[in-house]
């Protein structure tokens, strides 16, 4: 039995956060909003199961990311996003630092970008990222390391790992 109250509370409490995370992964606010809404709609479609998962937010994030990387969906989403939000221009009002980071993130590989966002923005451990993305722990470590190295020149910085 799907409980609309628990879904509404979950949605209201997490949707903005997930849009922020998807924006860092996709670089487009309109696309992030569309993909996240699509993922929540799918979550409600099977809320009796998803609500029982340990971390429904991770489920929605994973689905939203998968929706975003499907090029067919991407094309359709972009058209829909243009209709709803107008042409991209969604960096307005954001700090230049953040815009620079998101722009640089778009220049690294999909896997590296996903790992970096999940680690540095969402705060997941390497093991948690491996579980969420289905990649091996070693692969996630390599993606994080190489991703940060790839970002360094794009952000005009040296790489300094925390001890």
């Amino acid at each position: 039995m799907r409980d609309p109250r628990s879904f509404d509370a979950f949605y209201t409490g997490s949707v903005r956060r997930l849009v922020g995370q998807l924006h860092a992964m996709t670089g487009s606010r309109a696309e992030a909003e569309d993909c996240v809404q699509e993922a929540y709609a799918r979550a409600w479609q099977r809320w009796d199961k998803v609500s029982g998962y340990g971390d429904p937010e991770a489920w929605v994030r994973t689905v939203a990311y998968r929706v975003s990387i499907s090029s067919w969906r991407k094309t359709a989403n972009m058209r829909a996003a243009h209709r709803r939000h107008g042409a991209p221009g969604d960096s307005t009002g954001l700090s230049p630092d953040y815009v620079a980071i998101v722009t640089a993130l778009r220049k690294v590989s999909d896997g590296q970008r996903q790992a970096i966002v999940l680690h540095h923005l969402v705060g997941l451990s390497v093991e948690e990222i491996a579980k969420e993305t289905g990649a091996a722990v070693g692969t996630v470590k390599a993606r994080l390391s190489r991703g940060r190295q790839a970002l360094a020149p794009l952000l005009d910085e040296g790489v300094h790992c925390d001890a």
Partner: protein
Amino acid sequence: MRDSEFAARLRSGADELAAAVNPPPPDAIRRRGDHRRRRAAVMSGVLALAIGVGGGGAAYASLGQAGARGSGGHSGSVPLGALASGSAAALPGIVAVTTGGAVVVLNAVTGIATRVLVPQVDAIGDEVSISPSGATVYFAVKRDCVDYIESVPLSGGAPAVVSTGVLPSVSPDGTKLAFVREPVSGGPSTVRYGCSGTGGSPASQFQVVVRDLASGTEKVYPAAAAAPVSHLSWSPSGSAILVSAGPAGQNTGWSLSVLNAITSVPVTGQPDAAESYYREGVYLPDGNLFVDRVCCTGVPGSVTSTLLQEVSATGRLIHQVTEGFKDKDHTSLDASSGGLLLYLSGHDLYLSDGTHAPYKLTSGLIAAAWLPS
């Protein structure tokens, strides 16, 4: 910039963005989810009805209002009007070749054959192709160990021979027909595709032929790989043809190559880094490829995994559509202009929109392709 500083800036920016977002109310999202749920229920209900009436998956043989009968001869047709109310009624139709050798048009919602274009002509698979205007269907037939490409108007009529060969594939502009010919030493007019006991190595004899449909002139290219060609697919621009070939000998060395007038380029190393092979592939409307990627072991090889995926033209994984059946061949891959996918798993026809798990529409087929929408 230290990792901690990088993370702090990223979080601060994402928080800023999140605060500016104005999401729709939750009831709007629930309505969207409910709509999806109802649509899925309609689809599965219609599918169950089609399979039930069609006799355990042989739904293609049950004909609708057109009144003709398929090779299977099952009775108990479903009125098409009763099925047209589903939201998927806007799906393009499907042209298919049945295991009985007939060419039929299927309703993509029900899987039921709505028309028999050519009954019992010994049509062979795994490729059937429709002109972009939707006016003409090209298919292959076998007569006395000779294979012919034939065409038939979608509106009905007698089939006409186009050339010798198999695996017809019409170019996106409808002016050219690519197909495969396996000539024996007597010349290109004799073809022995699929006939046993004729000797020689088929690996060196397969040719990809591109025929101008208006003038009848042909360009012949050597096979793109040292193995029997199994499928052809034009790029959306019409500038290249994707050639699926294999297996090579008793091994599992399938390959996928992009053939244009000058070069033949493998999509990726064969096998690739994961020791997988591309069993078959077709172009998608956006230039990416829909492929069956197979991993295997031993000689002769046994399949250990078969994955239906969207990959880039260089073989980079973009999206996994589904995991296939290890004990079945996945053939007759096709994508509609809207990105809908179909393929055969053995003789079973599966459909997918690319994001949801494919579902079995019907059985008893050896080739299928979308009609233009």
